[in-house]
């Protein structure tokens, strides 16, 4: 069945460097630096990436950072908690926008 998302597209990611190699190299250099061990460990960065991946709902990133999180020593409890963090922020973000609703409603209402 044809879908917009194809699992094998992840393996073709580097094809994005074909027409703009300089920008691709700059992106990859930055990307690799971001995920290197720093003030946060590689495991912690992978868990953040996994949480963000679920928030932006990128199936490629979810696949990649589930594997990366496991490789870097995270377990299913930690990964599930990370996804809950993304979920809490998404839910909280909706709720806090409710304040805007209240502001408008309070201004218009009697």
């Amino acid at each position, binding site marked *: 069945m044809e879908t917009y998302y194809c699992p094998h597209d992840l393996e073709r990611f580097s094809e994005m460097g074909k027409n703009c190699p300089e920008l691709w190299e700059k992106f990859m250099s930055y990307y690799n630096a971001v995920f290197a*061990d720093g003030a946060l460990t*590689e495991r912690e960065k992978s868990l953040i990436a996994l949480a963000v991946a679920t928030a932006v709902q990128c199936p490629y990133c979810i696949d990649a950072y589930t*594997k*990366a999180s*496991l490789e*870097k*020593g995270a*377990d*299913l409890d930690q990964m599930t908690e990370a996804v809950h963090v993304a979920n809490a922020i998404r839910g909280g973000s909706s709720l806090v926008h409710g304040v805007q609703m209240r502001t408008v409603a309070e201004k218009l209402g009697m």
Partner: protein
Amino acid sequence: MPSLLSIGHRLSHPERQLRVLADTGSPAFDEVLRRHGLPALETGPIEILQVNVGKLCNQTCAHCHVDAGPDRKEIMTRETAEQVIELLRRHPIPTLDITGGAPELNPNFRWMVREAFRLGRHVIDRCNLTVLLIKAQRDLAEFLAAHKVEVIASLPSFRKNGTDAQRGDGVFDKSIEALRMLNALGYGDGNGNGLRLGLVHNPVGAFLPGNQASLERDYKRELDRRFGVGFDNLYTITNMPISRFLDFLERSGNLERYMDVLVQSFNPGAAGSVMCRSYLSVGWDGVLYDCDFNQMLDLPVGFGAPQTLSELLESGDLHRRVRTDRHCFGCTAGAGSSCAGAVAD
């Protein structure tokens, strides 16, 4: 959990394991070396004599390449242990690395440690930690400390669920208790007292280990924060696609993908530094191998090298060409893997 051997599992036969690996369609290891312009593996100076004193163990870990457990009875005799010490006496191999099974359960373990210590050799005990809590082994930790034995212990995760999933229910809590016991003797306190404590991280599943230095930072911080436990080094070791881990790969439908990952991640840099180039592995019965993995696959040293301790004591020739097969991709994937952890960047 019983061993594969005790239940008559087809993968308890080494030749069946090699056949399963060949059937994945993975290329021959030596062919990939040639493709990268690398020579066949040969030994340099032998730095480590790794002796497997038997398959008896008080645990039955899900990934064990030895298929060790309480039901395994193969064990090195005193006569063979004496040949090991004689080999050390005749050759200046700096380190004796004792493994199993749980090597401490061999009645000749302490004798071998004492003799190697007397010869001034560095001794490593590949310890499963829980053995330190067995009633009959309550003085083991003090014995190891008294002989400056480096303890290298498995702890696949700094959390209970990962460790217990791989090593058995309740192993994590006992491991922490044993680590505290070792710490109390001065192991792993980084004070230069010569009591070195290393931990081994094996992935809990069908994937490669992460960056060793990064994982070490995580382990050090988390074990200290959660349990007040310290250690010196973390070693990441890739799970070899043999024995019980091979059984897991087959049952979980991960075998082809895992072999593909190992082959695709072949690192020529790691291939030059694989442990078999500086190790000699001795089986419980005195047969010689290039590594503990070849030992479990019943692949003794080849190419005319002395096959047993007796033959080696006669010939004295430690140099040899290494026998390889498809499992060797486990030592050359990514940052590489050895009994001393990653071997490349």
